[in-house]
């Protein structure tokens, strides 16, 4: 890995994306280092989700470059970016129907190792091995899901489902985890719990976090640095506390559109 401590793991330069002639993201530059906790906020329609999707490869960018650890991944599909250390969770939860909690992690572990092959399955060597189960259970313990390991994922609450997504992402040993509105659908207490668990896991595993969130309190608790997007442009960037206090950000949230250059 070429990324050193001061070289950012994720770097986007001049990313632009438009839909049907409307610019959703305007020439945005961002950089997130491994191990860093960064928030991405902005009012509805600011282009957060689009930027997120551009970084992940869900939609192709019109212009600009996305790099992971110095490597240009602009043209790579989602799964290859994931394999390069970009994990994520979903706002609308995306669990694997009909799989248990542990199976979610096992398949992620297996994919990370990349040693699944048809002939191994046919020889009966596709079943989970002890060390794989151990690794999964470790993560489940970390997230407080150990007791639910054998439960079908349909039985989880929304908050537990979010945690399971985090756990599934962690199995791939991401260097940066992109969290998409993790608090949506959760009440205040659940959000606090989630934040705490996430923070513990982050400290334990040392991955970076890029958090898209509208819950300002959550962002200020969880992140050190913050980016503010409005009308597709980056309007502010800096330590979270300062950014949230700035006039520009308040203005944007109050709906005075695009006055800040």
């Amino acid at each position, binding site marked *: 890995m070429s990324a050193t401590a001061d070289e950012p793991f994720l770097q986007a330069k001049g990313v632009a994306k438009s839909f049907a002639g409307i610019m959703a993201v305007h020439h945005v530059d961002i950089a997130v280092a491994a191990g860093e906790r960064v928030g991405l906020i902005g009012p509805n329609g600011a282009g957060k989700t689009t930027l997120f999707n551009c970084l992940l490869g869900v939609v192709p960018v019109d212009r600009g470059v996305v790099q992971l650890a110095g490597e240009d991944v602009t043209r790579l599909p989602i799964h290859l970016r994931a394999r390069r250390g970009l994990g994520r969770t979903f706002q609308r939860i995306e669990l694997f129907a009909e799989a248990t909690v542990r199976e979610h992690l096992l398949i992620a572990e297996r994919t990370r190792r990349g040693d699944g092959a048809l002939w191994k399955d*046919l*020889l*009966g*060597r596709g*079943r989970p091995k002890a060390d794989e189960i151990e690794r999964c259970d470790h993560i489940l313990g970390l997230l407080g899901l150990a007791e639910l390991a054998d439960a079908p994922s349909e039985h989880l609450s929304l908050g537990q489902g979010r945690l399971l997504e985090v756990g599934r992402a962690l199995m791939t040993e991401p260097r940066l985890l992109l969290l998409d509105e993790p608090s949506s659908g959760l009440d205040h207490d659940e959000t606090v719990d989630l934040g705490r668990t996430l923070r513990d896991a982050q400290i334990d595993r040392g991955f970076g976090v890029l958090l898209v969130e509208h819950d300002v309190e959550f962002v200020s608790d969880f992140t050190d640095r913050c980016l503010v997007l409005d009308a597709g442009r980056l309007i502010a960037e800096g330590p979270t506390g300062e950014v949230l206090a700035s006039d520009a950000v308040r203005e944007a949230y109050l709906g005075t559109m695009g006055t800040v250059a």
Partner: protein
Amino acid sequence: MARTRGRVIIVLVTLLLVVPACGNAKQTSGTDAAKNVKLPTDGGQQNRAVHKEISGVPGVTSTEIAYGVVGTKQNNPLGTCLLDCYLQGINAYFAYRNSQGGIYGRKLVVGSVTDDQLGNNQAAALAITSGNKVFGAFEAGLLQQGWGDLNAAGVPTYMWGIDGQSAANRDALFPSTVIGCPDCTRRVVPYAAQLAHAHHAGVLGYSTSQNSQVCADSTAASFKLYAKDTGVDMAFLKDDLPYGLANGIGPEITAMKKAGVDFIATCFDLNAMKTLAQELKRQGMTNVTLYHPNTYNQAFVKAAGDLFEGNYVDVQFRPFEAATNTALTAFKTWMDKAHATYTELAMVGWINATLAYQGLLAAGPTFDRTKVIAATNHLTNFTADGLIATVDWSKAHTPYTQAARGTIKDLECGTFVKVVNGQFQEVGNKDKPWLCWPNSDLKWSTPVPTNFN
């Protein structure tokens, strides 16, 4: 351990797959035995009333010889009367022979009737081979999947001869029409064109069915071969139309119109002939004569009004419109007694039943399946009492090609009728309806009117 078990299993799998490299089983059949059977001396008309006890022969009791009949009724895409009409012909023949005392002191009866519903022909055939309740089988299914099983089981089987490939090289199978040489040229169609004073011939066939495509190609080859002699040239060929003509046939007719085609021979089913005739009418080509291979169906032609007026229709047996001979009289008499209509399939059933009877007769009073097959295959001059052109059963099972044709000694014959006022009419000699040429000499000659009484 799981790992070892896995290895063992893969080794087993590999073995299972490699060992079979041993080879392919040869189709053993009941007919192999028939090849070694000597022709009995006690067969024939003079011993017809001799009753001998026979045991262990399926379908044969001291009073009856039972046959199984299989045919398509449900799901018949042609919408024609197959199984029912076929059965009428068989029953009429059996009634006719039984009225004369049957054979070997036994009555001929239909023991089982099965509608194969188009797709279940093989299951129906296997029910016959395994049921051991019938002596022989009659088959009028549109798909011939069960023929191989009947042959393998050594069941003497008589069938509607619509499929040469399924009957080829199978000694226990006796189709009503032998398609010995699918790619051979035939003179009867160019002759019909000549008769219609045509100049330019068009030929059409389906790509869906090999039979139809090859039929079209060989018909085209026939026109080409005899173009100088008949004055009818080969002007248009399309042998790859989709079955049922779902896209219509407009462009082909237009192309034929341009080419001045005035005679069209096809290898279509009867329904498509109607589509074709309608399209001709639309494009104002009412003076074109059609040659129909599968339209010997009076009700159908009549219902079509004047669409087919003046057309020629190929017939696989002595046409009902020809002068009656003994067999045709018997057919009509016994069909009338059953209040049944004279149909193509009824005649096929009658012809099949005739061979079943004559095979029994040749096998002698101590007959069994093997003997009947062997004896039938010694019938070198079978004409169903003058209803079909001669078949030599000792050679009929082996297909040959146009190239090897010179060595074949028998005749190339055909017969057709003409549609006049919606009715079929004999064209040539009413008593000698067949037009025959020598098979060994491909040169054009005037056909010899023939009958096979």
